Protein backbone atom coordinates (compact mmCIF):
# COMPACT_ATOMS: atom_id res chain seq x y z
CA UNK A 1 0.00 0.00 0.00
CA UNK A 2 2.04 3.00 -1.22
CA UNK A 3 0.85 6.40 -0.17
CA UNK A 4 1.68 9.49 -2.11
CA UNK A 5 0.95 12.88 -0.55
CA UNK A 6 1.14 14.37 -4.01
CA UNK A 7 -2.12 12.63 -4.84
CA UNK A 8 -5.24 14.67 -4.34
CA UNK A 9 -6.77 11.91 -2.23
CA UNK A 10 -6.06 11.98 1.50
CA UNK A 11 -4.64 8.96 3.33
CA UNK A 12 -4.08 7.68 6.84
CA UNK A 13 -0.31 7.21 7.31
CA UNK A 14 0.22 3.61 8.46
CA UNK A 15 -2.33 1.31 10.03
CA UNK A 16 -5.43 2.97 11.53
CA UNK A 17 -4.98 0.76 14.64
CA UNK A 18 -1.73 2.59 15.40
CA UNK A 19 -3.57 5.91 15.28
CA UNK A 20 -6.11 4.54 17.76
CA UNK A 21 -3.17 3.68 20.04
CA UNK A 22 -1.61 7.12 19.52
CA UNK A 23 -4.84 8.90 20.45
CA UNK A 24 -5.42 6.60 23.45
CA UNK A 25 -1.88 7.13 24.74
CA UNK A 26 -2.14 10.86 24.15
CA UNK A 27 -5.34 11.04 26.22
CA UNK A 28 -3.78 8.89 28.95
CA UNK A 29 -0.79 11.24 29.17
CA UNK A 30 -3.14 14.24 29.24
CA UNK A 31 -4.65 12.67 32.38
CA UNK A 32 -1.17 12.22 33.90
CA UNK A 33 -0.30 15.82 33.01
CA UNK A 34 -3.59 17.05 34.49
CA UNK A 35 -3.01 15.24 37.80
CA UNK A 36 0.57 16.57 37.86
CA UNK A 37 -0.70 20.12 37.29
CA UNK A 38 -3.35 19.84 40.06
CA UNK A 39 -0.71 18.60 42.55
CA UNK A 40 1.61 21.35 41.39
CA UNK A 41 -0.85 24.20 41.99
CA UNK A 42 -1.69 22.74 45.41
CA UNK A 43 1.94 23.10 46.51
CA UNK A 44 3.61 25.46 44.01
CA UNK A 45 6.62 26.35 46.15
CA UNK A 46 7.65 22.72 46.68
CA UNK A 47 7.40 22.07 42.94
CA UNK A 48 9.31 25.25 42.02
CA UNK A 49 12.12 24.59 44.49
CA UNK A 50 12.39 20.91 43.52
CA UNK A 51 12.29 21.70 39.80
CA UNK A 52 15.19 24.15 40.33
CA UNK A 53 17.31 21.14 41.35
CA UNK A 54 16.99 19.73 37.82
CA UNK A 55 19.34 20.92 35.10
CA UNK A 56 17.12 21.90 32.13
CA UNK A 57 20.10 21.58 29.77
CA UNK A 58 19.68 17.78 30.02
CA UNK A 59 16.06 18.24 29.05
CA UNK A 60 16.72 20.47 26.04
CA UNK A 61 19.53 18.21 24.85
CA UNK A 62 17.22 15.21 24.93
CA UNK A 63 14.51 17.26 23.22
CA UNK A 64 16.87 18.10 20.35
CA UNK A 65 17.88 14.43 20.10
CA UNK A 66 14.22 13.29 19.99
CA UNK A 67 13.23 15.96 17.44
CA UNK A 68 16.14 14.97 15.21
CA UNK A 69 15.21 11.28 15.49
CA UNK A 70 11.62 12.15 14.54
CA UNK A 71 12.83 14.08 11.49
CA UNK A 72 15.03 11.15 10.56
CA UNK A 73 12.20 8.59 10.70
CA UNK A 74 10.00 10.98 8.69
CA UNK A 75 12.72 11.00 6.00
CA UNK A 76 12.82 7.20 6.17
CA UNK A 77 9.10 7.11 5.31
CA UNK A 78 9.67 9.46 2.35
CA UNK A 79 12.65 7.46 1.06
CA UNK A 80 10.77 4.14 1.32
CA UNK A 81 7.81 5.71 -0.48
CA UNK A 82 10.13 6.74 -3.32
CA UNK A 83 11.65 3.25 -3.46
CA UNK A 84 15.03 4.45 -2.12
CA UNK A 85 15.37 1.61 0.35
CA UNK A 86 19.07 2.12 1.09
CA UNK A 87 18.37 5.71 2.12
CA UNK A 88 15.35 4.53 4.13
CA UNK A 89 17.52 1.98 5.97
CA UNK A 90 20.18 4.62 6.66
CA UNK A 91 17.53 6.94 8.12
CA UNK A 92 16.00 4.28 10.35
CA UNK A 93 19.49 3.38 11.65
CA UNK A 94 20.10 7.08 12.39
CA UNK A 95 16.79 7.13 14.28
CA UNK A 96 17.83 4.04 16.24
CA UNK A 97 21.21 5.58 17.08
CA UNK A 98 19.59 8.82 18.23
CA UNK A 99 17.23 6.78 20.40
CA UNK A 100 20.29 5.19 22.01
CA UNK A 101 21.78 8.66 22.59
CA UNK A 102 18.55 9.61 24.38
CA UNK A 103 18.83 6.47 26.56
CA UNK A 104 22.44 7.24 27.50
CA UNK A 105 21.66 10.89 28.30
CA UNK A 106 18.57 10.02 30.33
CA UNK A 107 20.32 7.32 32.35
CA UNK A 108 23.26 9.67 32.97
CA UNK A 109 20.85 12.37 34.14
CA UNK A 110 19.00 9.97 36.46
CA UNK A 111 22.34 8.73 37.86
CA UNK A 112 23.44 12.30 38.52
CA UNK A 113 20.16 13.11 40.29
CA UNK A 114 20.12 9.92 42.34
CA UNK A 115 23.76 10.68 43.26
CA UNK A 116 22.54 13.97 44.72
CA UNK A 117 19.98 12.10 46.83
CA UNK A 118 17.04 13.06 44.62
CA UNK A 119 14.97 9.90 44.32
CA UNK A 120 11.38 8.81 43.67
CA UNK A 121 10.56 9.17 47.38
CA UNK A 122 12.26 12.55 47.91
CA UNK A 123 9.00 14.46 47.52
CA UNK A 124 5.87 14.71 45.35
CA UNK A 125 7.65 16.58 42.53
CA UNK A 126 10.32 13.92 42.19
CA UNK A 127 7.70 11.14 42.31
CA UNK A 128 6.06 12.77 39.29
CA UNK A 129 9.42 13.46 37.64
CA UNK A 130 10.54 9.83 37.85
CA UNK A 131 7.08 8.47 36.99
CA UNK A 132 6.65 10.62 33.85
CA UNK A 133 10.20 10.23 32.58
CA UNK A 134 10.25 6.47 33.32
CA UNK A 135 6.93 5.76 31.64
CA UNK A 136 8.16 7.74 28.63
CA UNK A 137 11.40 5.75 28.75
CA UNK A 138 9.42 2.47 28.60
CA UNK A 139 7.61 3.78 25.50
CA UNK A 140 11.01 4.59 24.00
CA UNK A 141 12.27 1.04 24.68
CA UNK A 142 9.18 -0.34 22.91
CA UNK A 143 10.10 2.06 20.10
CA UNK A 144 13.37 0.16 19.58
CA UNK A 145 11.37 -3.04 18.94
CA UNK A 146 9.18 -1.11 16.49
CA UNK A 147 12.26 0.26 14.70
CA UNK A 148 13.66 -3.28 14.60
CA UNK A 149 10.51 -4.41 12.77
CA UNK A 150 10.91 -1.53 10.30
CA UNK A 151 14.55 -2.50 9.69
CA UNK A 152 13.55 -6.17 9.21
CA UNK A 153 10.90 -5.13 6.70
CA UNK A 154 13.20 -2.82 4.76
CA UNK A 155 16.07 -5.33 4.55
CA UNK A 156 14.04 -7.99 2.72
CA UNK A 157 12.80 -6.99 -0.74
CA UNK A 158 9.99 -9.55 -0.48
CA UNK A 159 8.89 -8.26 2.91
CA UNK A 160 8.82 -4.53 2.24
CA UNK A 161 5.59 -2.90 3.30
CA UNK A 162 5.15 0.86 3.17
CA UNK A 163 2.26 0.56 5.60
CA UNK A 164 4.48 -1.08 8.25
CA UNK A 165 7.18 1.58 7.77
CA UNK A 166 4.57 4.34 8.24
CA UNK A 167 3.07 2.55 11.26
CA UNK A 168 6.47 2.26 12.93
CA UNK A 169 7.23 5.92 12.21
CA UNK A 170 3.88 6.98 13.69
CA UNK A 171 4.74 5.20 16.95
CA UNK A 172 8.18 6.84 17.09
CA UNK A 173 6.63 10.30 16.59
CA UNK A 174 4.30 9.55 19.53
CA UNK A 175 7.36 8.98 21.73
CA UNK A 176 8.75 12.29 20.43
CA UNK A 177 5.73 14.49 21.04
CA UNK A 178 5.10 13.03 24.51
CA UNK A 179 8.67 14.04 25.42
CA UNK A 180 8.05 17.55 24.05
CA UNK A 181 5.20 17.92 26.57
CA UNK A 182 7.15 16.34 29.46
CA UNK A 183 10.11 18.66 28.81
CA UNK A 184 7.90 21.75 29.12
CA UNK A 185 5.91 20.52 32.12
CA UNK A 186 8.70 19.05 34.23
CA UNK A 187 11.70 21.27 33.46
CA UNK A 188 10.41 24.66 32.38
CA UNK A 189 7.03 25.87 33.60
CA UNK A 190 6.90 28.14 36.64
Amino acid at each position, binding site marked *: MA*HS*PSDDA*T*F*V*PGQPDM*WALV*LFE*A*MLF*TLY*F*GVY*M*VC*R*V*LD*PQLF*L*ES*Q*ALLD*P*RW*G*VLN*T*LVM*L*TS*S*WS*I*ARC*VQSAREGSYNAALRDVFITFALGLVFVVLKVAEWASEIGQGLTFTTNEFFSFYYFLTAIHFIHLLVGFVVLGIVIYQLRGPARRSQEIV*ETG*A*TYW*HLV*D*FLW*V*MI*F*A*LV*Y*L*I*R
Partner: protein
Amino acid sequence: MLVWLGLSGISVLQLWLGSSGGAAVPVANAAITLSVLGMALVKVRFIMREFMEVRHAPALLCRLTDAWLLVTAISLFAIYLAGMAGTFG
Protein backbone atom coordinates in the same frame (compact mmCIF):
# COMPACT_ATOMS: atom_id res chain seq x y z
CA MET B 1 14.61 20.60 7.35
CA LEU B 2 12.74 23.86 7.97
CA VAL B 3 10.30 22.13 10.33
CA TRP B 4 13.18 20.54 12.28
CA LEU B 5 15.01 23.89 12.47
CA GLY B 6 11.84 25.61 13.68
CA LEU B 7 11.15 22.93 16.31
CA SER B 8 14.75 23.05 17.54
CA GLY B 9 14.74 26.85 17.63
CA ILE B 10 11.54 26.91 19.69
CA SER B 11 13.08 24.37 22.11
CA VAL B 12 16.10 26.59 22.72
CA LEU B 13 13.79 29.59 23.15
CA GLN B 14 11.79 27.58 25.70
CA LEU B 15 14.99 26.78 27.61
CA TRP B 16 15.93 30.46 27.64
CA LEU B 17 12.46 31.49 28.81
CA GLY B 18 12.24 28.74 31.43
CA SER B 19 15.68 29.62 32.80
CA SER B 20 15.21 33.39 32.73
CA GLY B 21 15.03 35.49 35.89
CA GLY B 22 17.83 33.72 37.73
CA ALA B 23 16.17 34.24 41.14
CA ALA B 24 17.72 32.18 43.94
CA VAL B 25 14.23 31.18 45.07
CA PRO B 26 12.15 30.49 41.95
CA VAL B 27 8.78 32.18 41.79
CA ALA B 28 5.61 31.25 39.92
CA ASN B 29 5.28 33.10 36.63
CA ALA B 30 2.11 32.73 34.57
CA ALA B 31 3.56 34.45 31.49
CA ILE B 32 6.53 32.05 31.33
CA THR B 33 4.35 29.01 32.06
CA LEU B 34 1.73 29.83 29.44
CA SER B 35 4.39 30.74 26.84
CA VAL B 36 6.44 27.60 27.40
CA LEU B 37 3.36 25.34 27.39
CA GLY B 38 1.91 27.11 24.35
CA MET B 39 5.19 26.61 22.48
CA ALA B 40 5.19 22.90 23.43
CA LEU B 41 1.68 22.52 22.00
CA VAL B 42 2.68 24.35 18.80
CA LYS B 43 5.66 21.99 18.48
CA VAL B 44 3.41 18.95 18.95
CA ARG B 45 1.03 20.24 16.27
CA PHE B 46 3.95 20.69 13.85
CA ILE B 47 5.16 17.14 14.62
CA MET B 48 1.68 15.81 13.94
CA ARG B 49 0.99 17.87 10.82
CA GLU B 50 4.40 17.58 9.15
CA PHE B 51 6.31 14.55 10.49
CA MET B 52 3.22 12.36 11.07
CA GLU B 53 1.65 13.61 7.82
CA VAL B 54 -1.68 14.47 9.42
CA ARG B 55 -1.75 17.36 6.93
CA HIS B 56 -2.47 14.79 4.22
CA ALA B 57 -4.80 12.66 6.35
CA PRO B 58 -8.61 12.55 6.20
CA ALA B 59 -10.44 15.37 7.99
CA LEU B 60 -11.43 13.04 10.86
CA LEU B 61 -7.81 12.41 11.86
CA CYS B 62 -7.00 16.14 11.56
CA ARG B 63 -9.95 16.94 13.81
CA LEU B 64 -9.17 14.22 16.36
CA THR B 65 -5.54 15.31 16.75
CA ASP B 66 -6.53 18.98 16.99
CA ALA B 67 -9.25 18.07 19.51
CA TRP B 68 -6.64 16.32 21.68
CA LEU B 69 -4.38 19.38 21.51
CA LEU B 70 -7.30 21.63 22.45
CA VAL B 71 -8.42 19.44 25.36
CA THR B 72 -4.84 19.25 26.66
CA ALA B 73 -4.28 23.00 26.28
CA ILE B 74 -7.56 23.96 27.97
CA SER B 75 -7.11 21.45 30.82
CA LEU B 76 -3.54 22.46 31.65
CA PHE B 77 -4.10 26.21 31.27
CA ALA B 78 -7.35 26.08 33.29
CA ILE B 79 -5.81 24.08 36.16
CA TYR B 80 -2.75 26.34 36.28
CA LEU B 81 -4.73 29.61 36.15
CA ALA B 82 -7.30 28.34 38.67
CA GLY B 83 -4.40 27.45 40.96
CA MET B 84 -2.84 30.91 40.53
CA ALA B 85 -6.23 32.47 41.37
CA GLY B 86 -6.35 30.42 44.58
CA THR B 87 -9.32 28.30 43.51
CA PHE B 88 -7.77 25.21 45.09
CA GLY B 89 -7.25 27.01 48.40
